[in-house]
């Protein structure tokens, strides 16, 4: 019986068909070696001895499989590959270094337990994304499969990807800058995309649509789309069933051309994805507020902060004063300027803080292009800083604002980027951020941002997020220095909980840290 995902060669596999399936796979393996134009890769010493479980589906004569090509390629890289079938229990992942789930699997029979496997998973089975918690469950909205027969023009469109996070290790290894690139060779074939949760790191998108992620990852400890925590690294890749051999690569004279190298990166992205998945993730940040505060105080010594506020603000004046005092107490030299002051005072500063007492209107676009790190407390100013799009209450806004917001006042944030130092060691999930429910700012950054916290029940409304220097912001603007949204309504600094203040310490420390740290 074929599933509705027959395009992905996903007929249900029963024990009675197992022998036939494996025999078919062998034939396909040999068949691939006959017909698949993919040069064998050179062994990678870093991968030698690593074990991979490759889950595949039943061969389908209507949809050619490249599973054998994938297997051969992984083996050529030096990996030890064990073939498994799609209905194999997740216990098969035990002892493996990586689970690869092919697009040929029947998503209906892939055990949900793989979601909890503490082993990295790399997959290009888009219908399995929800099973793994990588995306939501709605086809066409949360994920989709682009088949030439159904989406002919779109399948051509998806021969072109766009890199939105050139700083991601996968993009870096593949040599992919922020640009359009060739995903697959010039033959329309099956591709897929997903719309992962805010904690995912999206490397490449299709059609210029940030909600169509062709290549994305979740770091270990990041919150998955459904709120569960990724037990190990996860990668979603844009392949279909039988087009691994079409992943772009370049040889001969063209390989000398840097532009060609950066264009034909499909196979390099695949290899880099394998490398990244197999690389041990960074140690999670420790939950040690005192140590964090001490580290910040140590880092603050000799550093300068420009604090931009509305001087004598009718609301939030004391909070600004306390904020400044706190920074000075840490050891920063703080200069306070009015929102209306001409730009220029940021010269020589190590950090610019934009208080929520600032009027977005009066800031009139200042500071957006400065080369100093910025910590912005005002979500409404996110567009002017190119941290979010232009539509108020679509791209940025506030919860609890009595005139404009339909959302209630809020005091909690939802930590989704627990893996990152900006999360200060807090576990994923809700955390009391301010003492009493109040106005909380949000914005929806590009996929180039690192999202740490969202507003509760609003995963696209991000409260704490940062752009690393060099990452891609709105309008393809490249961040000249670190940019961070840390939401504080006018009086909210005084309302921060202890946990909120720990997050504040982590935010400041990240802003003044060396890019990449």
């Amino acid at each position, binding site marked *: 019986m074929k599933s509705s995902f027959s395009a992905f060669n996903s007929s249900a596999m029963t024990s009675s068909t197992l022998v036939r399936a494996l025999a078919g796979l062998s034939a396909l393996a040999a068949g691939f*070696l006959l*017909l698949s134009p993919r040069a064998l890769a050179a*062994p990678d010493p870093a991968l030698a001895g690593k074990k991979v479980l490759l889950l595949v589906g039943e061969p389908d004569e209507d949809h050619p499989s490249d599973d054998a090509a994938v297997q051969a390629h992984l083996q050529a890289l030096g990996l030890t590959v064990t073939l498994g079938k799609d209905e194999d229990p997740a216990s098969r992942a035990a002892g493996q270094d990586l689970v690869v789930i092919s697009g040929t699997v029947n998503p209906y029979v892939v055990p949900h337990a793989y979601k909890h496997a503490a082993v990295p998973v790399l997959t290009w089975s888009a219908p399995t994304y929800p099973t793994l918690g990588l995306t939501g469950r709605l086809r066409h909205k949360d994920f989709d499969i682009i088949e030439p027969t159904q989406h002919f023009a779109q399948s051509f469109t998806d021969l072109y990807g766009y890199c939105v996070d050139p700083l991601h290790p996968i993009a870096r290894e593949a040599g992919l800058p922020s640009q359009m690139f060739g995903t697959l060779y010039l033959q329309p074939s099956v591709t897929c995309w997903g719309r992962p949760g805010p904690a995912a790191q999206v490397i490449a998108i299709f059609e210029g649509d940030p909600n169509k992620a062709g290549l994305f990852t979740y770091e270990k400890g990041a919150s998955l789309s459904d709120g569960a925590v990724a037990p190990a690294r996860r990668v979603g890749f844009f392949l279909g069933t039988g087009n691994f051999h079409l992943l772009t690569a*370049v*040889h*001969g*004279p063209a390989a*000398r051309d840097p532009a060609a190298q950066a264009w034909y990166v499909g196979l390099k992205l695949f290899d880099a994805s394998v490398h990244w998945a197999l690389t041990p993730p960074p140690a999670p940040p420790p939950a040690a507020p005192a140590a964090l505060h001490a580290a910040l105080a140590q880092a603050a010594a000799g550093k300068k902060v420009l604090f931009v506020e509305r001087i004598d603000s009718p609301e939030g004046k004391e909070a600004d004063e306390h904020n400044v005092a706190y920074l000075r107490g840490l050891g920063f030299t703080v200069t306070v300027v009015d929102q209306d002051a001409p730009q220029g005072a940021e010269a020589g500063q190590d950090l610019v803080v934009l208080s929520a007492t600032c009027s977005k209107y009066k800031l009139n676009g200042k500071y957006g292009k400065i080369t100093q790190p910025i910590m912005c407390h005002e979500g409404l100013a996110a567009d002017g800083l190119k941290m979010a799009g232009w539509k108020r209450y679509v791209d940025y806004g506030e919860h609890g604002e009595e005139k404009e917001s339909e959302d209630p006042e809020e005091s909690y944030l939802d930590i989704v980027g627990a893996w990152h130092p900006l999360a200060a060691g807090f576990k994923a999930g809700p955390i009391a951020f301010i003492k009493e429910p109040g106005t909380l700012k949000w914005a929806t950054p590009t996929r180039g941002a690192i999202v740490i916290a969202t507003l509760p029940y609003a995963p696209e409304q991000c409260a704490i997020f940062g752009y690393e220097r060099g990452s891609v912001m709105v309008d393809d603007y490249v961040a000249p220095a670190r940019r961070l949204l840390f939401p504080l309504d006018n009086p909210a600094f005084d309302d921060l909980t202890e946990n909120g203040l720990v997050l504040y310490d982590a935010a400041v420390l990240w802003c003044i840290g060396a890019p990449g740290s």
Partner: protein
Amino acid sequence: MSEPASFRFCLAVVRRRLAVVGWAALAASLAGAPAPSYRVVGHYPLPEGACSAVAIDAAARRLYVGQGNLVRVLNADTGAVVGTIAPAPGVQGLELAPGLNRGFTANAGDDTVTEFDLKSGAVVQTVKTGGKSPVAICYDAEARRIFVANRASGDLSVLAADTGLVTDHVPLGGTLRALVSNGYGSLFVTAEDLSVLHVVDTHTLAALGDDPVAPGVGPGGLAIDPAGRRLFVACANGLMPIVDGDAGFVFQVLPIGSGSSAVVFDRSKQANPDGGPPWKARILAASEQGVLAALRMNAFINYSFHDRSAIPAGARGLAFDPKTGRVLVALPHEILVLGL
């Protein structure tokens, strides 16, 4: 150039599997056998001596056949021998340059190139290539150069078209077998033992890099579609990788029959043997084992296997006659004439 042991192992696996599967796939593709692309319409018997190369001057209706130590000139329509060009010791490659009124042979027997007058058949000069065992030759009108692939020494000899004299040598490496020019700056040379295409700049003569032809092994015959920028590589393991000449990327592989040694690309409008609209183009590959495979161009990015025909074993060269649409196959003792 040595290969890592694991790489050699993988290649060995590939070769073994290809040997098993290649003919099975070919047979499967024949299961619903379409109408054959060609039928035998004539034989041009030749005097003693095995044919080693064939080329046609379609406008002059002359067929040139390398045979032993000479070149026989035949009437392309009747097969009658109308002349002989000698000496051409161990001739392996033939190239005609009607625009220059010149023909050239690559003579493996004494490592020379024979230059002859196309109208008179007279030998103009014979020059040493400076390499070992020249087996293929190609005239690039745009660069005004003649390139000779030296099989044993793994290098190219470059002759000036105006003088016929050797001006340069380009070391490439490997066992060279065939070469084609795209007419706008690049020369592609097969290296059988390396399973790559060497790419050479026809102006600077710089070796620009290699295009791998995997999973093809043992590339021999080579043809080009200059407009489509596609290279068709007949490989000894029965595969024809189709290479995007710009990116050096093998984007399709079709089964043709093992031991394929000659290939031609025909872009002229050809009838469809199955009926229907004419094909955009076709590619023909002949193997020494006696298979003529016909591939169909569906689009610049898509080709399909159409059929294969049994021909006598020992094919060493192919020529396409654009005037008649016929294919001329160089067999050991005759030219086999195939027509639609």
